[in-house]
């Protein structure tokens, strides 16, 4: 600490502290001045004492005053510091009043050069004790000079006394205005302080909230098992959670800040899937959402959505990758299981069918009529069981996306004939007549999958026979317009209740009610038809009237010549 800063510290009078503290500090400065200023008088008096104009006696009095002032100042400082500022200030002012009486010759004090000394307590009191106290000291000073004048036998200096009161008025006014100003300043300062405290606490609360919110968001993002990457409008990854780096086997820092193509090029994706993922993320294409890709050893399901701001402007894309490996494995296992079971069921069923047929055909010798009847029943039931196994296998293949639709030339007339070959006997056994109609508008050769088209016809006709007890079953094939053709079956059954229309095309569903189990089957026929029709880019519709029957209409794209085949929609599952 250097001298300047010590002085600054000493002389600085706080304006915002409590009133008492300001007064005490002011008093300390005055005491310091009063104690120090007379000190040089001591060596001067000792040196000049006895010389011309300055008697030895005068010098001794001067030294005594200087020492007294010094000692009193220290005592007053102690009172000011440790007891009371007001008391110390009062004593100090009285002390000044007393000391001034001995400061000069009585003439000089009443009428001369030292009269000015009596103004000092008046001015100081307005600052140290309060504005009104200056009147007390004006009165005191007046009494003092009156008393000095009386004892020195001098005419009292009345104008000086009046001036003391005038000075007291001025001191009172200025002291008051100073105090008012300081008071206002303190109020302003207090308000400012309060405002600073409020703002600080608001800011710190906001900051805490922000940190908690950001932390929460990050915690959510970090704890979800799905991989999340956010791309900005330029396709740059700006955010990636830990799950994504585990899923695609890439550290977060190698994802964030890189472009989409960087991410895909260095990935373990096949070229075809790479294109699909890029298309999905670049366009957020709805058609591609939720599709699965093989990413290294994992199967991932990928979804993307636009990120929009408050004004609904697209500001980026968020991509969510879900680990589908386990599900894909389970699905694969299920399909393999169904396929194996179906194959393993077919072989012994094939044997039963073969042996029954051989018995009936008398390969092992003649059998009687009853035995022949039993053989036929074995054959019929085995065929039915084989049909169910076939349906299960087809369903499994469709679900696995392994069922491919061929596009080869085939004859509608042949398809209808083959269908009759399967269905004629089944219909006549039930007392129904099966009527087929090939409209002349139908081209003689079309492009399609004969096996699957026939399956559609057989399943529809089989369904019609199954649910009709009398009358006829119509199966019509006709060209509907230049671009499509239709297969239509009309039965004379009971019709389908309205609430059942919603689910008759679902797997393993049959119309609930009295007729359910008597028709046999596992409820896959119509479901397979619908799925095959959709694989062929066609549609299926049903119209029904309770008690009168149902009409199923399949509409398929008409492909006339090879080479003009329309592309089949590829299945993404």
């Amino acid at each position, binding site marked *: 600490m250097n001298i300047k800063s010590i002085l600054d510290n000493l002389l600085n009078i706080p304006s915002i502290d409590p009133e008492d503290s300001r007064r005490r500090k002011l008093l300390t400065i005055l005491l310091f001045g009063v104690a120090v200023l007379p000190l040089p008088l001591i060596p001067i008096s000792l040196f000049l004492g006895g010389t011309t104009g300055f008697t030895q006696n005068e010098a001794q009095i001067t030294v005594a005053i200087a020492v007294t002032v010094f000692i009193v100042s220290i005592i007053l400082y102690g009172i000011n510091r440790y007891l009371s500022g007001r008391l110390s200030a009062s004593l100090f002012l009285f002390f000044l009043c007393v000391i001034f009486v001995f400061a000069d010759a009585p003439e000089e004090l009443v009428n001369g050069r030292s009269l000015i000394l009596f103004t000092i307590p008046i001015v100081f009191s307005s600052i140290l004790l309060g504005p009104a106290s200056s009147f007390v000291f004006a009165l005191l000073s007046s009494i003092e000079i009156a008393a000095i004048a009386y004892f020195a036998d001098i005419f009292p200096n009345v104008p000086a006394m009046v001036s003391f009161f005038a000075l007291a008025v001025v001191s009172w006014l200025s002291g008051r205005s100073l105090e008012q100003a300081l008071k206002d300043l303190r109020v302003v300062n207090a308000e400012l302080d309060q405002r600073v405290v409020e703002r600080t606490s608001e800011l710190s609360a906001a900051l805490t909230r922000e940190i908690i919110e950001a932390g929460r968001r990050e915690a959510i993002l970090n704890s979800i098992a799905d991989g999340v990457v956010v791309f900005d409008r330029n396709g740059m990854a700006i955010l990636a959670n830990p799950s994504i780096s585990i899923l695609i086997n890439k550290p977060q820092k190698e994802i964030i800040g890189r472009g989409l193509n960087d991410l895909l090029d260095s990935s373990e994706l096949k070229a075809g899937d790479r294109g699909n993922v890029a298309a999905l993320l670049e366009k957020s294409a709805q058609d591609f959402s939720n599709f699965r890709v093989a990413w290294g050893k994992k199967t991932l399901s990928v979804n993307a959505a636009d990120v929009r701001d408050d004004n609904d402007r697209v500001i980026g894309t968020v991509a969510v990758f879900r680990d589908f490996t386990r599900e894909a494995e389970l699905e694969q296992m299920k399909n393999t299981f169904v396929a194996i079971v179906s194959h393993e069921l077919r072989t012994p069923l*094939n044997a039963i069918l073969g042996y029954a047929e*051989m018995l009936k055909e008398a390969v092992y010798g003649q059998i009687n009529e009853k035995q022949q009847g039993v053989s036929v029943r074995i054959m019929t039931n085995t065929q039915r069981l084989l049909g169910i196994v076939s349906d299960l296998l087809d369903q499994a293949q469709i679900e696995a996306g392994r069922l491919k639709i061929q596009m080869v030339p085939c004859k509608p007339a042949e398809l209808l004939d083959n269908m009759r070959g399967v269905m004629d006997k089944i219909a006549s056994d039930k007392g129904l007549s099966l009527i087929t109609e090939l409209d002349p508008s139908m081209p003689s050769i079309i492009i399609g999958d004969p096996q699957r088209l026939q399956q559609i016809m057989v399943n529809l006709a089989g369904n019609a026979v199954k649910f009709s007890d009398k009358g006829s079953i119509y199966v019509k094939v006709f060209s509907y317009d230049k671009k499509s053709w239709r297969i239509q079956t009309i039965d004379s059954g009971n019709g389908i209740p309205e609430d059942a229309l919603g689910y008759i095309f679902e797997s393993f569903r049959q119309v609930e009610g009295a007729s359910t189990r008597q028709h046999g089957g596992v409820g896959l026929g119509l479901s397979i038809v619908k799925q095959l029709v959709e694989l062929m880019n066609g549609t299926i519709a049903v119209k029904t009237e309770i008690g009168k029957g149902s009409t199923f209409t399949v509409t398929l794209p008409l492909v006339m010549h090879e080479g003009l085949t329309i592309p089949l929609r590829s299945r993404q599952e």
Partner: protein
Amino acid sequence: MSELALIIEDDEDLSEIFGQALSAAGFTTEVIRDGLSAQERIKQVVPSVVTLDMHIPHIPGNIILDQIRADKRLANTRVVVTTADAQMGETVRGTADLVLIKPITFTQLRDLTFRLHQWE
């Protein structure tokens, strides 16, 4: 002596049924149960008809089919693929004379091979 039909089929019952069907169609029949034996046998004989299962032990049916097609001695041999695997059936449709998807009935095989016999 009637013409030879080789029945390459690992299932005992089906080989019996196919054998009976081909006998009924007028062939002399011989049953082979696995791929290795089949490979050896077709080097020694010239069958008119071969019924060939795709899933047989040791060597798959499609390899046997290729071997038959590569052998000039067997240029007139008719190969009837008998399989439960429709997918597999599709892949050999161009190479085989006939593809039958199981279940294959006695009468179906008898009548079809009888027709093949008639064409000879």
